[in-house]
C-alpha cells in the first residue's frame, strides 16, 4: 500500500488499490442506506393499512431503494473488486489509465451525493418515479416537482462514471496482462470483468439517450414520450429495457466471477470446464441484448413479439444453467472447506438457482401476465440480485479482505453473518412468491387486510430485519478486524491466482517482479519464485485533475435543476479545464 498518508494523498490518488478501497467504502455506505430504505418499506408493509410512512414518502423509498442498490451499491461494489483485484490477477502494476480510474470514482461519489441531496431539501423531493421511471408518469405534468430531475440528472452523471471505468478495464485486461497470461489463462473474475465492461460501454449510451429525451420533455417541452403530439410512452420502456436487461447481467456477471474463484480455492480443485464457463459468460453477454421485451409482456406488443422474446429469454437460461452445473462439478470430489467466503459462494448457487427458476416461469408470457408487477417478480429479482449478486459480493469481501487490508475477518462472526443473511433473505423473499401469486401488486404503499396476506407480509418484514441484524454483525466484524484481526500472509487461503503472489496488502507497485505465467493457476502449478529486481519500480504521482474534472459534472447538472442556463457553461468549463490540465500534466506510470 502506498505510504503517502493524509487527505491529500487520498484525494489525488491514482493507485487502483486505493481507488478500489474508496469504491468499496462509498458503495458499502450506500448499500447500508439502501438497506435502511428497505427496512422502512418493510416496516410500513408489516401491517395492512399502515400509516407508518405516508404514500409519497413510500414512493420515494422504493424508488431510491432500487436506484441506490443498483447504481450506488451493487455496481460500485463490483467496481471495487475490478479495481483492487483485476490488475493483480493479470499481473499488472495498475490499470492503463490511472487518472481516468480516479475520475470514475469521483464522478460516482458526486453523482450519488447529487441524487441523495434531494432528501435534504425542504419537502425532501427525492425521486419517486420508481427506479425504472416509466413515462408518462415521469413527465412534468404528472411529476411537477424536482424529484424526477434529481433522478435523471444523477443517473446521467453516474453513467459517465461507469462508461469511463468500462473503457479502462477493457483496455487494461486486453493490454496489460503479464507475459504468458493468454486470454484463456485469465482468471474467470477478470474475464467476467471484461464482459461486464463491454456490456457497460454498449448499454449505458442507450439509457443516456432515453434520459436525455426525458430531460428534454421536462425542461424544453419536447414530446418524446407524450402521446398528445404523437410521442409514445412505450418508447421509454423499450429504451429503458434495452439498457435494463444488459444491466442485470452487468450486475450478476462479476458475482459469478467471484464464485468461480472462490469455489476452486476452497475445493482444492480447478474450476470444472473453465473454457465453457468463460464462453457461457461471453454468450450471456451477447444474448442479453435479445431479451429486453420480456419486461413488457403486459404491454400488448402482440403474440409474435411476445413469442420471440419468450424464446430468446428461455434460450439464455441454457448458458446460465451450464455455469451452475460447472460449479457443482467443481465441488464434486473436492476437499471442501466451509470458510465464510465459501459459504456465501455456496449460498449464491442455492439462491441464484431459485431466482433463475422463477425467471423461467416469467419467460412464459401468459404465465407472466399473472406474475409481472406483483410481489412474485420482486421475489425473483431479489433472489438473483440478493441471493445472487450480494451473496457473491460478500463471498468476494471475505475472500479478498485479507489481500486488501492485510487482516482476516473473523470467521465465527462471518459464519454468523452468513446464517443471519441466508435465513433472513429466504424469510424475506420466499413468501413474496406466494404474496405475488395471491394478488398483491408491487409498489403499493399499503394493502388491504382483505387480501389475506397480513401474516405473510409480517414474516417478510421480520426477515428483512434479520438481514439487517446480519449486516450489523458484519459491520462489527469489519470494525473489529482493524485492530484485532489476524494478520494475513500473502496467500491465507491457498489461492491459485496471481493476486495471492504478492504481500497482503500489496506494495504500491504490486509485484517486485512481474511474474511470467505458464498456466491458468500459477500458484498451484508451483512456478519458481521471482527474483528481486536490481532497479526500483517507478510509481506514478497523484493528480488533482480527475477530481477537478469530475466536479464539473454535478455543476452542469444544476442548470436544469435550477432552470438557469449559464450554470451549464460554468460546469462545462470546469470539466474541460480539468481535462486539459489532465491531458498535459506530466504523468508517467
Amino acid at each position: 500500500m502506498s505510504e503517502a498518508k493524509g487527505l491529500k494523498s487520498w484525494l489525488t490518488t491514482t493507485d487502483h488499490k486505493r481507488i478500489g478501497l474508496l469504491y468499496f467504502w462509498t458503495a458499502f455506505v450506500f448499500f447500508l442506506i439502501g438497506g435502511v430504505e428497505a427496512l422502512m418499506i418493510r416496516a410500513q408493509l408489516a401491517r395492512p393499512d399502515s400509516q407508518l410512512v405516508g404514500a409519497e414518502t413510500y414512493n420515494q423509498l422504493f424508488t431510491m431503494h432500487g436506484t441506490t442498490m443498483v447504481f450506488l451499491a451493487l455496481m460500485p461494489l463490483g467496481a471495487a473488486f475490478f479495481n483492487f483485484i483485476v490488475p493483480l490477477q493479470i499481473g499488472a502494476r495498475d490499470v492503463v489509465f490511472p487518472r481516468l480510474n480516479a475520475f470514475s470514482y469521483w464522478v460516482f461519489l458526486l453523482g450519488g451525493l447529487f441524487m441523495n441531496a434531494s432528501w435534504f431539501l425542504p419537502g425532501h423531493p427525492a425521486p419517486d418515479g420508481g427506479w425504472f421511471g416509466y413515462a408518462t408518469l415521469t413527465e412534468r405534468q404528472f411529476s411537477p416537482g424536482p424529484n424526477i430531475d434529481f433522478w435523471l440528472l444523477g443517473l446521467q452523471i453516474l453513467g459517465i462514471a461507469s462508461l469511463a471505468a468500462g473503457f479502462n478495464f477493457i483496455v487494461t485486461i486486453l493490454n496489460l496482462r503479464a507475459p504468458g497470461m493468454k486470454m484463456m489463462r485469465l482468471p474467470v473474475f477478470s474475464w467476467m470483468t471484461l464482459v461486464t465492461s463491454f456490456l457497460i460501454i454498449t448499454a449505458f449510451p442507450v439509457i443516456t439517450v432515453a434520459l436525455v429525451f426525458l430531460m428534454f420533455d421536462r425542461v424544453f417541452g419536447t414530446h418524446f414520450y407524450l402521446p398528445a403530439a404523437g410521442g409514445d410512452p412505450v418508447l421509454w420502456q423499450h429504451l429503458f429495457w434495452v439498457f435494463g436487461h444488459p444491466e442485470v447481467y452487468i450486475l450478476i456477471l462479476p458475482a459469478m466471477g467471484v464464485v468461480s474463484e472462490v469455489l476452486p480455492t476452497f475445493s482444492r480443485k480447478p474450476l470444472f470446464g473453465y473454457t465453457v464457463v468463460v464462453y457461457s459468460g461471453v454468450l450471456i453477454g451477447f444474448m442479453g441484448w435479445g431479451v429486453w421485451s420480456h419486461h413488457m409482456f403486459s404491454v400488448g406488443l402482440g403474440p409474435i413479439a411476445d413469442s420471440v422474446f419468450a424464446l430468446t429469454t428461455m434460450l439464455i437460461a441454457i448458458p446460465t444453467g451450464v455455469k451452475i452445473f460447472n460449479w457443482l462439478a467443481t465441488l464434486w470430489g473436492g476437499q471442501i472447506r466451509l470458510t465464510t467466503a465459501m459459504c456465501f459462494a455456496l449460498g449464491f448457487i442455492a439462491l441464484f438457482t431459485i431466482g433463475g427458476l422463477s425467471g423461467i416461469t416469467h419467460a412464459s408470457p401468459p404465465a407472466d401476465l399473472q406474475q409481472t408487477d406483483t410481489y412474485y417478480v420482486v421475489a425473483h429479482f431479489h433472489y438473483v440480485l440478493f441471493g445472487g449478486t450480494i451473496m457473491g459480493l460478500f463471498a468476494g469481501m471475505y475472500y479478498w479482505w485479507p489481500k486488501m487490508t492485510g487482516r482476516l475477518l473473523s470467521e465465527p462472526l462471518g459464519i454468523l453473518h452468513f446464517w443471519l443473511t441466508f435465513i433472513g433473505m429466504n424469510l424475506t423473499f420466499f413468501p413474496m412468491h406466494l404474496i405475488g401469486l395471491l394478488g398483491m401488486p408491487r409498489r403499493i404503499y399499503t394493502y388491504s387486510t382483505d387480501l389475506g396476506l397480513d401474516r405473510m407480509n409480517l414474516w417478510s418484514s421480520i426477515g428483512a430485519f434479520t438481514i439487517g441484524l446480519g449486516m450489523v454483525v458484519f459491520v462489527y466484524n469489519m470494525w473489529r478486524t482493524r485492530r484485532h484481526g489476524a494478520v494475513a500472509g500473502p496467500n491465507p487461503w491457498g489461492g491459485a491466482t496471481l493476486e495471492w503472489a504478492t504481500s497482503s496488502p500489496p506494495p504500491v507497485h504490486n509485484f517486485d517482479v512481474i511474474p511470467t505465467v505458464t498456466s491458468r493457476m500459477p500458484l498451484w502449478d508451483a512456478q519458481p519464485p521471482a527474483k528481486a529486481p536490481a532497479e526500483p519500480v517507478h510509481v506514478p504521482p497523484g493528480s488533482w485533475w480527475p477530481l477537478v474534472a469530475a466536479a464539473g459534472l454535478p455543476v452542469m447538472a444544476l442548470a436544469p435543476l435550477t432552470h438557469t442556463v449559464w450554470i451549464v457553461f460554468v460546469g462545462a468549463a470546469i470539466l474541460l479545464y480539468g481535462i486539459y490540465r489532465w491531458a498535459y500534466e506530466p504523468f508517467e506510470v
Partner: protein
Amino acid sequence: MSHAATTHHTSMGLDSRKMAFWAFIGSECLLFGTLISTYLIYQGRSVSGPTPGEILNIPVTSISTFDLLMSSLWMVLALAAVQRGDMKWAKVWLLGVAIGGAIFLGFQVYEFTSFVHEGLTLKTNLFGATFFVLTGTHGAHVTVGVLWMLTLWYRAMRGKLGPQHAVTVEIAGLYWHFVDVVWIAIFTLVYLLHK
C-alpha cells in the same frame, strides 16, 4: 500522457490509447444509433407542424457536408505531416480542420435559426424534437472536435507537438473521421431519404 499507455509493451500489440478510443467509438455508435433509431421510428408520426420535405434544404446542407468531408481529408494530411515531422504543414492542416469544422457549425447554426424562423423548434412536433436532438448532439461532437484541433494547433504553435505525439494526433483523427461518418449517416437518412 500516461506512460503505460505508450511505450510499454502491450499484450495485444496495439497502443492502449488507440484501443481505448476504438472502444469509445463503439460506445458512441450505440449513442448515435439510439438517436437515429428514434428519429426513424418517429418519422412520419408528427401530428402537426413542418415536415422534413417542407423545410430541409438539401442543396445547402450538401455544401456543409462537402465541407466536413474535406476537413477529414485535411485531417489525414495533418496526421501525415506530424508523422513525418513536418510541423509547418501540420499546423496548416490542423488549423484547416478546425476551420472546416467551424464552417460546418456555422452552417448548422444558420440552418437551426432558419428552421426556427420557419416554425420548427424542439417543441413544435416529433420531427423538431428528434431532428434537433440528433443533429444537435452531432454538432456538440463537432464542437468538441474543433476545440480538440485548436488545442493541438495551439500546442504545435508553441513547439510542443511533434512526431513523437503522432499517436495522439491519430486518435484525434479517428474522432474526427467518426464524427464525419456519423454525419454521412445522418445526411443520408434524414436529408436524402426523408419521407
